[in-house]
Protein backbone atom coordinates (compact mmCIF):
# COMPACT_ATOMS: atom_id res chain seq x y z
CA UNK A 1 0.00 0.00 0.00
CA UNK A 2 2.64 2.43 1.06
CA UNK A 3 4.95 1.20 -1.67
CA UNK A 4 2.23 1.79 -4.24
CA UNK A 5 1.65 5.27 -3.03
CA UNK A 6 5.35 6.03 -3.12
CA UNK A 7 5.67 4.63 -6.60
CA UNK A 8 2.75 6.57 -7.90
CA UNK A 9 4.09 9.74 -6.40
CA UNK A 10 7.46 9.20 -7.98
CA UNK A 11 6.24 7.86 -11.26
CA UNK A 12 6.22 9.49 -14.65
CA UNK A 13 9.39 11.53 -14.30
CA UNK A 14 11.01 11.07 -17.64
CA UNK A 15 13.32 13.96 -17.00
CA UNK A 16 14.19 12.96 -13.47
CA UNK A 17 17.82 12.53 -14.43
CA UNK A 18 18.06 16.33 -14.56
CA UNK A 19 17.86 16.28 -10.77
CA UNK A 20 20.89 14.05 -10.43
CA UNK A 21 22.84 16.16 -12.89
CA UNK A 22 21.98 19.32 -10.98
CA UNK A 23 23.84 17.90 -7.98
CA UNK A 24 26.50 15.85 -9.68
CA UNK A 25 27.73 18.50 -12.13
CA UNK A 26 28.80 20.98 -9.42
CA UNK A 27 30.31 18.10 -7.43
CA UNK A 28 32.29 17.02 -10.48
CA UNK A 29 33.45 20.60 -10.77
CA UNK A 30 34.65 20.57 -7.17
CA UNK A 31 36.61 17.37 -7.76
CA UNK A 32 38.22 18.57 -10.98
CA UNK A 33 39.07 21.97 -9.52
CA UNK A 34 40.63 20.38 -6.43
CA UNK A 35 42.63 17.83 -8.37
CA UNK A 36 44.00 20.10 -11.07
CA UNK A 37 43.95 23.47 -9.34
CA UNK A 38 45.50 26.58 -10.77
CA UNK A 39 43.70 28.32 -13.60
CA UNK A 40 41.64 25.22 -14.26
CA UNK A 41 39.75 25.86 -11.03
CA UNK A 42 38.36 29.11 -12.39
CA UNK A 43 37.66 27.70 -15.84
CA UNK A 44 35.91 24.68 -14.36
CA UNK A 45 33.77 26.97 -12.27
CA UNK A 46 32.53 28.86 -15.32
CA UNK A 47 31.89 25.67 -17.27
CA UNK A 48 29.86 24.33 -14.38
CA UNK A 49 27.97 27.60 -14.09
CA UNK A 50 26.97 27.44 -17.72
CA UNK A 51 25.80 23.84 -17.36
CA UNK A 52 24.10 24.56 -14.08
CA UNK A 53 22.11 27.46 -15.48
CA UNK A 54 20.81 25.26 -18.28
CA UNK A 55 19.93 22.48 -15.84
CA UNK A 56 18.18 24.85 -13.46
CA UNK A 57 16.03 26.37 -16.17
CA UNK A 58 15.29 22.96 -17.65
CA UNK A 59 13.99 21.70 -14.31
CA UNK A 60 11.99 24.87 -13.80
CA UNK A 61 10.37 24.57 -17.21
CA UNK A 62 9.51 20.93 -16.69
CA UNK A 63 7.89 21.51 -13.31
CA UNK A 64 6.06 24.55 -14.62
CA UNK A 65 4.77 22.98 -17.81
CA UNK A 66 3.60 19.75 -16.25
CA UNK A 67 2.49 21.23 -12.92
CA UNK A 68 3.85 18.09 -11.31
CA UNK A 69 6.93 17.56 -9.22
CA UNK A 70 9.90 15.78 -10.74
CA UNK A 71 11.24 12.72 -8.99
CA UNK A 72 14.22 10.41 -9.36
CA UNK A 73 14.96 7.18 -7.52
CA UNK A 74 18.68 6.75 -6.91
CA UNK A 75 20.27 3.38 -7.53
CA UNK A 76 16.91 1.83 -8.37
CA UNK A 77 16.28 1.47 -4.64
CA UNK A 78 12.96 3.06 -3.87
CA UNK A 79 12.15 4.49 -0.49
CA UNK A 80 12.12 3.49 2.33
CA UNK A 81 15.40 1.70 1.75
CA UNK A 82 16.88 4.06 -0.81
CA UNK A 83 17.07 7.77 -1.48
CA UNK A 84 14.75 9.69 -3.79
CA UNK A 85 15.32 13.14 -5.24
CA UNK A 86 12.31 15.38 -5.73
CA UNK A 87 11.80 18.79 -7.28
CA UNK A 88 8.59 20.60 -6.54
CA UNK A 89 7.70 24.19 -7.33
CA UNK A 90 9.76 25.81 -4.61
CA UNK A 91 12.76 23.58 -5.38
CA UNK A 92 12.69 24.66 -9.00
CA UNK A 93 12.46 28.33 -8.09
CA UNK A 94 15.36 28.02 -5.66
CA UNK A 95 17.47 26.13 -8.20
CA UNK A 96 17.14 28.92 -10.74
CA UNK A 97 17.64 31.67 -8.17
CA UNK A 98 20.80 29.98 -6.92
CA UNK A 99 22.15 29.45 -10.41
CA UNK A 100 21.62 33.08 -11.39
CA UNK A 101 23.13 34.56 -8.25
CA UNK A 102 26.12 32.25 -8.33
CA UNK A 103 26.72 33.11 -11.97
CA UNK A 104 26.63 36.82 -11.23
CA UNK A 105 28.89 36.38 -8.20
CA UNK A 106 31.40 34.38 -10.22
CA UNK A 107 31.61 37.12 -12.82
CA UNK A 108 31.97 39.68 -10.05
CA UNK A 109 34.65 37.67 -8.30
CA UNK A 110 36.77 37.27 -11.41
CA UNK A 111 38.60 40.47 -10.72
CA UNK A 112 39.40 39.58 -7.11
CA UNK A 113 40.20 35.91 -7.45
CA UNK A 114 41.87 35.42 -10.75
CA UNK A 115 45.23 33.81 -11.37
CA UNK A 116 47.53 35.41 -13.91
CA UNK A 117 48.35 33.38 -16.95
CA UNK A 118 51.84 32.43 -15.88
CA UNK A 119 51.13 32.50 -12.19
CA UNK A 120 51.30 29.72 -9.70
CA UNK A 121 48.25 28.52 -7.88
CA UNK A 122 47.45 30.89 -5.06
CA UNK A 123 45.53 30.24 -1.87
CA UNK A 124 42.57 32.60 -2.05
CA UNK A 125 41.56 32.05 -5.68
CA UNK A 126 41.84 28.27 -5.50
CA UNK A 127 39.85 28.09 -2.29
CA UNK A 128 37.22 30.53 -3.55
CA UNK A 129 36.42 28.69 -6.78
CA UNK A 130 36.36 25.26 -5.16
CA UNK A 131 34.12 26.46 -2.34
CA UNK A 132 31.81 28.38 -4.67
CA UNK A 133 31.07 25.18 -6.56
CA UNK A 134 30.74 23.28 -3.31
CA UNK A 135 28.19 25.76 -1.94
CA UNK A 136 26.22 25.30 -5.12
CA UNK A 137 26.36 21.50 -4.96
CA UNK A 138 25.26 21.58 -1.34
CA UNK A 139 22.39 23.98 -1.96
CA UNK A 140 21.11 21.97 -4.90
CA UNK A 141 21.15 18.85 -2.75
CA UNK A 142 19.20 20.67 -0.05
CA UNK A 143 16.59 21.74 -2.58
CA UNK A 144 16.29 18.37 -4.28
CA UNK A 145 16.77 15.62 -1.72
CA UNK A 146 13.75 13.78 -0.46
CA UNK A 147 15.55 11.94 2.33
CA UNK A 148 16.12 13.39 5.80
CA UNK A 149 19.59 11.96 6.40
CA UNK A 150 20.75 12.88 2.91
CA UNK A 151 19.67 16.40 3.83
CA UNK A 152 21.87 16.21 6.94
CA UNK A 153 24.89 15.37 4.76
CA UNK A 154 23.91 18.26 2.47
CA UNK A 155 23.76 20.62 5.47
CA UNK A 156 27.24 19.61 6.57
CA UNK A 157 28.50 20.05 3.02
CA UNK A 158 27.03 23.53 3.03
CA UNK A 159 28.64 24.41 6.36
CA UNK A 160 32.07 23.16 5.34
CA UNK A 161 31.86 25.14 2.14
CA UNK A 162 30.64 28.36 3.74
CA UNK A 163 32.83 28.58 6.84
CA UNK A 164 36.22 28.80 5.10
CA UNK A 165 34.76 31.48 2.81
CA UNK A 166 34.20 33.62 5.89
CA UNK A 167 37.79 33.10 7.03
CA UNK A 168 39.25 33.65 3.57
CA UNK A 169 40.79 37.04 4.27
CA UNK A 170 42.93 35.58 7.04
CA UNK A 171 42.32 38.43 9.47
CA UNK A 172 41.74 37.66 13.12
CA UNK A 173 38.16 39.01 13.15
CA UNK A 174 37.25 36.93 10.13
CA UNK A 175 38.70 33.77 11.63
CA UNK A 176 36.93 34.40 14.93
CA UNK A 177 33.67 34.96 13.08
CA UNK A 178 34.22 31.78 11.06
CA UNK A 179 34.90 29.73 14.18
CA UNK A 180 31.79 31.00 15.90
CA UNK A 181 29.73 30.35 12.75
CA UNK A 182 31.13 26.82 12.55
CA UNK A 183 30.25 26.03 16.17
CA UNK A 184 26.71 27.32 15.73
CA UNK A 185 26.29 25.44 12.48
CA UNK A 186 27.62 22.19 13.91
CA UNK A 187 25.37 22.41 16.95
CA UNK A 188 22.46 23.13 14.64
CA UNK A 189 23.03 20.18 12.37
CA UNK A 190 23.63 17.74 15.21
CA UNK A 191 20.26 18.65 16.72
CA UNK A 192 18.74 18.23 13.29
CA UNK A 193 20.27 14.75 13.22
CA UNK A 194 18.82 14.02 16.65
CA UNK A 195 15.37 14.84 15.32
CA UNK A 196 15.94 12.56 12.35
CA UNK A 197 17.01 9.77 14.71
CA UNK A 198 13.85 10.13 16.78
CA UNK A 199 11.64 10.17 13.70
CA UNK A 200 13.29 7.04 12.37
CA UNK A 201 12.98 5.42 15.76
CA UNK A 202 9.26 6.10 15.74
CA UNK A 203 8.39 5.43 12.10
CA UNK A 204 11.17 3.47 10.48
CA UNK A 205 11.79 5.66 7.46
CA UNK A 206 13.83 8.67 6.40
CA UNK A 207 11.84 9.45 3.28
CA UNK A 208 9.85 12.66 3.46
CA UNK A 209 6.77 11.44 1.59
CA UNK A 210 6.59 8.19 3.58
CA UNK A 211 6.96 10.03 6.85
CA UNK A 212 4.17 12.32 5.78
CA UNK A 213 1.92 9.31 5.42
CA UNK A 214 2.92 7.65 8.67
CA UNK A 215 3.28 10.43 11.21
CA UNK A 216 0.73 10.72 13.99
CA UNK A 217 0.73 13.45 16.62
CA UNK A 218 2.78 12.24 19.55
CA UNK A 219 5.56 13.33 21.87
CA UNK A 220 8.35 11.85 19.74
CA UNK A 221 7.22 13.88 16.74
CA UNK A 222 6.87 17.10 18.69
CA UNK A 223 10.30 16.77 20.24
CA UNK A 224 11.90 15.70 16.95
CA UNK A 225 10.42 18.63 15.04
CA UNK A 226 11.35 21.00 17.87
CA UNK A 227 14.96 19.79 17.83
CA UNK A 228 15.20 19.99 14.06
CA UNK A 229 13.61 23.41 13.92
CA UNK A 230 15.81 24.77 16.70
CA UNK A 231 18.93 23.46 15.00
CA UNK A 232 17.92 24.92 11.67
CA UNK A 233 17.01 28.24 13.30
CA UNK A 234 20.57 28.49 14.58
CA UNK A 235 21.82 28.01 11.02
CA UNK A 236 19.31 30.51 9.63
CA UNK A 237 20.34 33.08 12.24
CA UNK A 238 16.86 33.85 13.46
CA UNK A 239 16.74 36.12 16.50
CA UNK A 240 17.92 35.35 19.20
CA UNK A 241 20.34 32.88 17.59
CA UNK A 242 21.51 35.50 15.14
CA UNK A 243 24.66 36.90 16.64
CA UNK A 244 27.12 34.84 14.66
CA UNK A 245 25.89 36.29 11.38
CA UNK A 246 26.84 40.00 11.26
CA UNK A 247 30.58 39.57 11.91
CA UNK A 248 30.70 36.55 9.60
CA UNK A 249 28.94 38.14 6.65
CA UNK A 250 30.67 41.47 7.11
CA UNK A 251 34.11 39.90 7.50
CA UNK A 252 33.96 37.74 4.40
CA UNK A 253 35.16 38.95 1.01
CA UNK A 254 32.31 40.74 -0.82
CA UNK A 255 31.64 37.94 -3.28
CA UNK A 256 31.41 35.48 -0.41
CA UNK A 257 29.16 37.80 1.61
CA UNK A 258 26.79 37.95 -1.32
CA UNK A 259 26.52 34.18 -1.47
CA UNK A 260 26.26 33.78 2.29
CA UNK A 261 23.49 36.30 2.82
CA UNK A 262 21.57 35.62 -0.34
CA UNK A 263 21.69 31.85 -0.50
CA UNK A 264 23.38 29.95 2.31
CA UNK A 265 21.09 31.08 5.11
CA UNK A 266 18.09 30.34 2.88
CA UNK A 267 19.15 26.69 2.62
CA UNK A 268 18.39 25.92 6.25
CA UNK A 269 15.16 27.95 6.03
CA UNK A 270 14.15 25.79 3.06
CA UNK A 271 14.57 22.72 5.25
CA UNK A 272 12.39 24.17 7.99
CA UNK A 273 9.66 24.62 5.39
CA UNK A 274 10.18 21.06 4.18
CA UNK A 275 9.81 19.69 7.67
CA UNK A 276 6.81 21.77 8.62
CA UNK A 277 4.82 21.46 5.43
CA UNK A 278 6.02 18.28 3.73
CA UNK A 279 6.92 15.97 6.58
CA UNK A 280 4.24 16.93 9.04
CA UNK A 281 0.77 15.94 7.92
CA UNK A 282 -2.45 17.83 8.42
CA UNK A 283 -2.63 20.12 11.37
CA UNK A 284 0.49 21.73 12.71
CA UNK A 285 0.89 23.34 16.07
CA UNK A 286 -0.66 26.81 16.05
CA UNK A 287 1.24 27.82 19.14
CA UNK A 288 4.59 26.86 17.66
CA UNK A 289 3.79 28.76 14.49
CA UNK A 290 2.97 31.85 16.52
CA UNK A 291 6.24 31.48 18.41
CA UNK A 292 8.15 31.41 15.13
CA UNK A 293 6.22 34.46 14.01
CA UNK A 294 7.08 36.33 17.19
CA UNK A 295 10.76 35.51 16.78
CA UNK A 296 10.53 36.67 13.19
CA UNK A 297 8.92 39.92 14.27
CA UNK A 298 11.62 40.43 16.88
CA UNK A 299 14.25 39.80 14.21
CA UNK A 300 12.67 42.38 11.92
CA UNK A 301 12.54 45.08 14.57
CA UNK A 302 15.84 44.30 16.27
CA UNK A 303 17.78 43.77 13.06
CA UNK A 304 16.47 46.91 11.40
CA UNK A 305 17.13 49.13 14.42
CA UNK A 306 20.64 47.82 14.97
CA UNK A 307 21.33 48.12 11.25
CA UNK A 308 20.43 51.79 11.41
CA UNK A 309 22.99 52.35 14.15
CA UNK A 310 25.93 50.82 12.34
CA UNK A 311 28.97 52.82 11.42
CA UNK A 312 30.22 50.46 8.74
CA UNK A 313 28.35 49.72 5.56
CA UNK A 314 28.99 46.00 5.45
CA UNK A 315 27.81 45.53 9.02
CA UNK A 316 24.68 47.52 8.23
CA UNK A 317 23.92 45.23 5.32
CA UNK A 318 24.60 42.16 7.47
CA UNK A 319 22.17 43.30 10.18
CA UNK A 320 19.70 44.03 7.43
CA UNK A 321 19.95 40.34 6.54
CA UNK A 322 19.07 39.46 10.12
CA UNK A 323 15.99 41.66 9.79
CA UNK A 324 14.88 40.42 6.37
CA UNK A 325 15.13 36.80 7.49
CA UNK A 326 12.54 37.69 10.08
CA UNK A 327 10.00 38.38 7.34
CA UNK A 328 10.37 34.81 6.15
CA UNK A 329 9.21 33.48 9.48
CA UNK A 330 6.01 35.48 9.37
CA UNK A 331 4.97 32.89 6.82
CA UNK A 332 4.37 30.37 9.59
CA UNK A 333 1.62 32.03 11.60
CA UNK A 334 0.00 33.22 8.39
CA UNK A 335 -0.21 29.77 6.80
CA UNK A 336 -0.48 27.32 9.68
CA UNK A 337 -4.02 27.08 10.91
CA UNK A 338 -5.47 28.59 7.75
CA UNK A 339 -4.89 25.65 5.45
CA UNK A 340 -7.47 25.55 2.72
CA UNK A 341 -8.22 29.24 2.78
CA UNK A 342 -7.01 31.33 -0.14
CA UNK A 343 -5.16 33.61 2.25
CA UNK A 344 -2.72 30.94 3.19
CA UNK A 345 -1.77 30.68 -0.48
CA UNK A 346 -1.31 34.45 -0.54
CA UNK A 347 0.94 34.37 2.49
CA UNK A 348 2.88 31.44 1.06
CA UNK A 349 3.50 33.27 -2.20
CA UNK A 350 4.45 36.41 -0.31
CA UNK A 351 7.00 34.56 1.79
CA UNK A 352 8.69 32.99 -1.21
CA UNK A 353 8.80 36.22 -3.18
CA UNK A 354 10.38 37.81 -0.12
CA UNK A 355 13.01 35.08 -0.07
CA UNK A 356 13.88 35.35 -3.75
CA UNK A 357 13.82 39.13 -4.00
CA UNK A 358 15.89 39.45 -0.82
CA UNK A 359 18.40 37.03 -2.34
CA UNK A 360 18.83 39.20 -5.43
CA UNK A 361 18.73 42.49 -3.55
CA UNK A 362 21.14 41.44 -0.80
CA UNK A 363 23.63 39.94 -3.24
CA UNK A 364 23.51 43.19 -5.20
CA UNK A 365 24.00 45.23 -2.03
CA UNK A 366 27.01 43.30 -0.85
CA UNK A 367 28.57 43.48 -4.29
CA UNK A 368 27.97 47.20 -4.43
CA UNK A 369 29.39 47.67 -0.95
CA UNK A 370 32.40 45.62 -1.98
CA UNK A 371 33.06 47.84 -4.97
CA UNK A 372 32.70 50.96 -2.88
CA UNK A 373 35.01 49.62 -0.19
CA UNK A 374 37.57 48.68 -2.81
CA UNK A 375 37.39 52.05 -4.49
CA UNK A 376 37.49 54.17 -1.34
CA UNK A 377 39.62 51.89 0.78
CA UNK A 378 37.08 51.88 3.62
CA UNK A 379 33.36 51.37 4.22
CA UNK A 380 32.56 53.95 6.87
CA UNK A 381 29.08 55.23 6.13
CA UNK A 382 29.71 58.77 7.30
CA UNK A 383 32.63 59.15 4.90
CA UNK A 384 30.85 57.95 1.77
CA UNK A 385 30.33 61.46 0.43
CA UNK A 386 30.76 61.84 -3.29
CA UNK A 387 30.68 58.16 -4.11
CA UNK A 388 27.65 58.69 -6.33
CA UNK A 389 29.75 60.77 -8.71
CA UNK A 390 32.58 58.30 -8.76
CA UNK A 391 30.61 55.03 -9.01
CA UNK A 392 27.19 55.95 -10.37
CA UNK A 393 26.09 52.49 -11.46
CA UNK A 394 27.06 50.98 -8.14
CA UNK A 395 25.11 53.53 -6.17
CA UNK A 396 22.14 53.01 -8.46
CA UNK A 397 22.34 49.28 -7.78
CA UNK A 398 22.39 49.96 -4.06
CA UNK A 399 19.42 52.25 -4.37
CA UNK A 400 17.30 49.78 -6.30
CA UNK A 401 18.17 46.99 -3.83
CA UNK A 402 17.25 49.32 -1.02
CA UNK A 403 13.88 49.96 -2.63
CA UNK A 404 13.20 46.25 -2.62
CA UNK A 405 14.29 45.87 1.00
CA UNK A 406 12.09 48.76 2.05
CA UNK A 407 9.11 47.33 0.25
CA UNK A 408 8.49 50.27 -2.05
CA UNK A 409 6.82 49.63 -5.42
CA UNK A 410 7.75 48.51 -7.97
CA UNK A 411 9.85 45.75 -6.52
CA UNK A 412 9.73 42.16 -5.42
CA UNK A 413 10.00 43.31 -1.84
CA UNK A 414 6.90 45.41 -2.22
CA UNK A 415 4.84 42.56 -3.67
CA UNK A 416 6.03 40.21 -0.95
CA UNK A 417 5.19 42.57 1.88
CA UNK A 418 1.89 43.54 0.28
CA UNK A 419 0.86 39.90 0.03
CA UNK A 420 1.81 39.23 3.62
CA UNK A 421 0.01 42.38 4.74
CA UNK A 422 -3.21 41.39 2.96
CA UNK A 423 -3.07 37.88 4.31
CA UNK A 424 -2.55 39.01 7.87
CA UNK A 425 -5.32 41.59 7.70
CA UNK A 426 -7.80 39.20 6.10
CA UNK A 427 -7.01 36.49 8.62
CA UNK A 428 -7.52 38.88 11.48
CA UNK A 429 -3.90 38.67 12.62
CA UNK A 430 -3.36 42.39 12.20
CA UNK A 431 -0.35 42.45 14.51
CA UNK A 432 1.82 40.94 11.80
CA UNK A 433 0.71 43.70 9.45
CA UNK A 434 1.91 46.26 11.96
CA UNK A 435 5.28 44.50 12.14
CA UNK A 436 5.64 44.42 8.36
CA UNK A 437 4.90 48.12 8.11
CA UNK A 438 7.19 49.02 10.99
CA UNK A 439 9.99 46.92 9.52
CA UNK A 440 9.58 48.62 6.18
CA UNK A 441 9.76 52.06 7.78
CA UNK A 442 12.94 51.32 9.71
CA UNK A 443 14.49 49.71 6.64
CA UNK A 444 13.63 52.89 4.84
CA UNK A 445 15.46 54.82 7.54
CA UNK A 446 18.72 52.99 7.16
CA UNK A 447 18.59 52.85 3.38
CA UNK A 448 17.92 56.55 3.17
CA UNK A 449 20.65 57.23 5.69
CA UNK A 450 23.19 55.50 3.46
CA UNK A 451 21.82 57.01 0.28
CA UNK A 452 22.01 60.58 1.60
CA UNK A 453 25.65 60.03 2.49
CA UNK A 454 26.40 58.57 -0.90
CA UNK A 455 24.55 61.25 -2.80
CA UNK A 456 25.82 63.93 -0.51
CA UNK A 457 28.09 66.75 -1.55
CA UNK A 458 31.78 66.08 -1.59
CA UNK A 459 33.71 67.68 1.20
CA UNK A 460 36.81 66.65 -0.63
CA UNK A 461 37.36 64.71 -3.81
CA UNK A 462 37.24 61.02 -2.97
CA UNK A 463 40.42 59.51 -4.18
CA UNK A 464 39.78 56.13 -5.74
CA UNK A 465 42.47 53.77 -4.68
CA UNK A 466 41.36 51.26 -7.27
CA UNK A 467 39.64 51.96 -10.54
CA UNK A 468 36.44 49.98 -10.86
CA UNK A 469 35.39 48.83 -14.29
CA UNK A 470 31.99 49.74 -15.59
CA UNK A 471 31.12 46.16 -16.49
CA UNK A 472 31.84 45.11 -12.95
CA UNK A 473 29.45 47.74 -11.69
CA UNK A 474 26.78 46.40 -14.00
CA UNK A 475 26.69 43.08 -12.11
CA UNK A 476 25.10 44.32 -8.90
CA UNK A 477 22.91 46.54 -11.02
CA UNK A 478 21.55 43.60 -12.99
CA UNK A 479 20.87 41.65 -9.80
CA UNK A 480 19.09 44.63 -8.31
CA UNK A 481 16.98 44.98 -11.45
CA UNK A 482 16.04 41.31 -11.09
CA UNK A 483 14.80 42.06 -7.61
CA UNK A 484 12.72 44.84 -9.06
CA UNK A 485 11.38 42.77 -11.92
CA UNK A 486 10.04 40.24 -9.45
CA UNK A 487 7.49 42.85 -8.58
CA UNK A 488 6.15 42.81 -12.09
CA UNK A 489 5.51 39.08 -12.41
CA UNK A 490 1.94 38.13 -13.26
CA UNK A 491 0.29 36.36 -10.36
CA UNK A 492 -0.62 33.30 -12.43
CA UNK A 493 3.03 32.46 -12.83
CA UNK A 494 3.33 32.30 -9.06
CA UNK A 495 1.14 29.24 -8.86
CA UNK A 496 4.38 27.46 -9.70
CA UNK A 497 5.28 27.90 -6.05
CA UNK A 498 2.50 25.55 -5.04
CA UNK A 499 3.31 22.69 -7.37
CA UNK A 500 3.94 19.56 -5.40
CA UNK A 501 2.54 20.73 -2.10
CA UNK A 502 0.09 18.65 -0.20
CA UNK A 503 -3.28 20.03 -1.13
CA UNK A 504 -3.81 21.94 2.07
CA UNK A 505 -3.10 25.24 0.39
CA UNK A 506 -6.38 25.09 -1.45
CA UNK A 507 -5.24 25.83 -4.96
CA UNK A 508 -2.80 24.24 -7.43
CA UNK A 509 -1.43 21.38 -5.30
CA UNK A 510 -0.70 18.04 -6.93
Amino acid at each position, binding site marked *: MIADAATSLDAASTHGYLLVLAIVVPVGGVLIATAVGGRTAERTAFAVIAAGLILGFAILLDVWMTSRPLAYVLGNWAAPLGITLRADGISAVMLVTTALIIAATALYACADFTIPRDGLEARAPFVFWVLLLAVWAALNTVFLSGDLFNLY*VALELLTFAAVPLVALSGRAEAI*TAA*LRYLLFALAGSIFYLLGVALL*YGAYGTLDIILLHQRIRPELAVSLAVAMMTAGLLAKTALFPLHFWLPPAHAGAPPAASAILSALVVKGSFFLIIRIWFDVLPGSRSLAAAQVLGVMGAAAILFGSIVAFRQARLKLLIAYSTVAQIGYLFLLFPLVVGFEGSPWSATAWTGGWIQLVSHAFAKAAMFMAAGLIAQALGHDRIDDLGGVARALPLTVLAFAISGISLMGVPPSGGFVAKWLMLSASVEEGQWWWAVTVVAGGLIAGAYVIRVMTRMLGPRLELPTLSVKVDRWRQSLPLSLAICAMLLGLLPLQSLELLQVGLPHFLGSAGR
Partner: protein
Amino acid sequence: MTSATLFGLCGAILIGLGLFELITDPHPLRKILGFNLLGGGVFLVLGVVARRGAAAGYLGDPVPQALVITGIVVAFSATALAVALVVRLSEVSGRVSLAYASSEQTDSDGAEG
Protein backbone atom coordinates in the same frame (compact mmCIF):
# COMPACT_ATOMS: atom_id res chain seq x y z
CA MET B 1 14.82 -1.98 31.14
CA THR B 2 16.76 -3.41 28.27
CA SER B 3 20.37 -2.56 27.63
CA ALA B 4 19.31 -0.63 24.56
CA THR B 5 17.09 1.68 26.56
CA LEU B 6 19.80 2.03 29.19
CA PHE B 7 22.32 3.23 26.63
CA GLY B 8 19.67 5.45 25.12
CA LEU B 9 19.34 7.24 28.44
CA CYS B 10 23.12 7.38 28.59
CA GLY B 11 23.05 9.07 25.19
CA ALA B 12 20.46 11.56 26.40
CA ILE B 13 22.69 12.56 29.30
CA LEU B 14 25.73 12.82 27.02
CA ILE B 15 23.77 15.20 24.82
CA GLY B 16 23.02 17.39 27.81
CA LEU B 17 26.64 17.31 29.01
CA GLY B 18 28.02 18.05 25.56
CA LEU B 19 25.62 20.92 25.00
CA PHE B 20 26.50 22.34 28.40
CA GLU B 21 30.21 22.35 27.61
CA LEU B 22 29.57 23.77 24.15
CA ILE B 23 27.55 26.65 25.55
CA THR B 24 29.38 27.53 28.75
CA ASP B 25 33.07 26.82 28.38
CA PRO B 26 34.84 29.87 26.95
CA HIS B 27 37.83 28.01 25.54
CA PRO B 28 37.16 27.05 21.89
CA LEU B 29 38.92 23.70 22.16
CA ARG B 30 36.67 22.73 25.07
CA LYS B 31 33.68 23.77 23.01
CA ILE B 32 34.87 21.41 20.31
CA LEU B 33 35.14 18.62 22.87
CA GLY B 34 31.63 19.44 23.97
CA PHE B 35 30.44 19.17 20.38
CA ASN B 36 32.06 15.72 20.17
CA LEU B 37 30.30 14.60 23.34
CA LEU B 38 27.06 15.95 21.91
CA GLY B 39 27.62 14.08 18.66
CA GLY B 40 28.47 10.90 20.52
CA GLY B 41 25.20 11.15 22.40
CA VAL B 42 23.20 11.61 19.21
CA PHE B 43 24.97 8.64 17.63
CA LEU B 44 24.13 6.57 20.68
CA VAL B 45 20.45 7.44 20.20
CA LEU B 46 20.74 6.27 16.59
CA GLY B 47 22.51 3.13 17.76
CA VAL B 48 19.75 2.41 20.23
CA VAL B 49 17.20 2.81 17.46
CA ALA B 50 19.28 0.33 15.45
CA ARG B 51 19.43 -2.19 18.29
CA ARG B 52 15.72 -2.01 18.88
CA GLY B 53 15.19 -2.67 15.19
CA ALA B 54 16.73 -6.12 15.37
CA ALA B 55 14.81 -8.32 12.95
CA ALA B 56 15.16 -10.69 10.02
CA GLY B 57 17.96 -12.55 11.74
CA TYR B 58 20.08 -9.47 12.37
CA LEU B 59 20.96 -8.14 15.78
CA GLY B 60 20.41 -4.58 14.67
CA ASP B 61 18.80 -2.53 11.93
CA PRO B 62 21.63 -1.86 9.46
CA VAL B 63 20.32 1.49 8.21
CA PRO B 64 20.84 3.52 11.41
CA GLN B 65 24.17 1.75 11.89
CA ALA B 66 25.33 2.97 8.50
CA LEU B 67 24.11 6.46 9.39
CA VAL B 68 26.26 6.45 12.52
CA ILE B 69 29.35 5.41 10.56
CA THR B 70 28.76 8.27 8.14
CA GLY B 71 28.14 10.57 11.09
CA ILE B 72 31.39 9.63 12.84
CA VAL B 73 33.41 10.45 9.74
CA VAL B 74 31.58 13.76 9.26
CA ALA B 75 32.05 14.66 12.93
CA PHE B 76 35.76 13.99 12.61
CA SER B 77 36.03 16.30 9.59
CA ALA B 78 34.15 18.95 11.51
CA THR B 79 36.56 18.63 14.42
CA ALA B 80 39.51 18.89 12.06
CA LEU B 81 38.19 22.07 10.48
CA ALA B 82 37.29 23.61 13.83
CA VAL B 83 40.67 22.78 15.29
CA ALA B 84 42.46 24.26 12.28
CA LEU B 85 40.51 27.49 12.82
CA VAL B 86 41.49 27.57 16.51
CA VAL B 87 45.17 27.04 15.71
CA ARG B 88 45.14 29.69 12.99
CA LEU B 89 43.38 32.11 15.30
CA SER B 90 46.08 31.66 17.91
CA GLU B 91 48.78 32.15 15.30
CA VAL B 92 47.22 35.34 13.95
CA SER B 93 46.00 36.94 17.14
CA GLY B 94 48.14 35.37 19.83
CA ARG B 95 45.21 34.31 21.94
CA VAL B 96 42.61 31.56 21.95
CA SER B 97 39.26 33.12 22.56
CA LEU B 98 36.01 33.79 20.77
CA ALA B 99 35.76 37.31 22.12
CA TYR B 100 36.20 39.99 19.53
CA ALA B 101 39.10 42.32 20.22
CA SER B 102 37.95 44.90 17.71
CA SER B 103 35.61 47.54 19.08
CA GLU B 104 34.02 47.96 15.67
CA GLN B 105 31.95 44.85 16.27
CA THR B 106 29.00 46.49 17.97
CA ASP B 107 27.34 43.20 18.73
CA SER B 108 26.65 43.11 22.43
CA ASP B 109 26.89 39.37 23.01
CA GLY B 110 30.47 38.39 23.56
CA ALA B 111 30.99 35.41 25.80
CA GLU B 112 28.78 32.80 24.23
CA GLY B 113 29.55 30.54 21.36
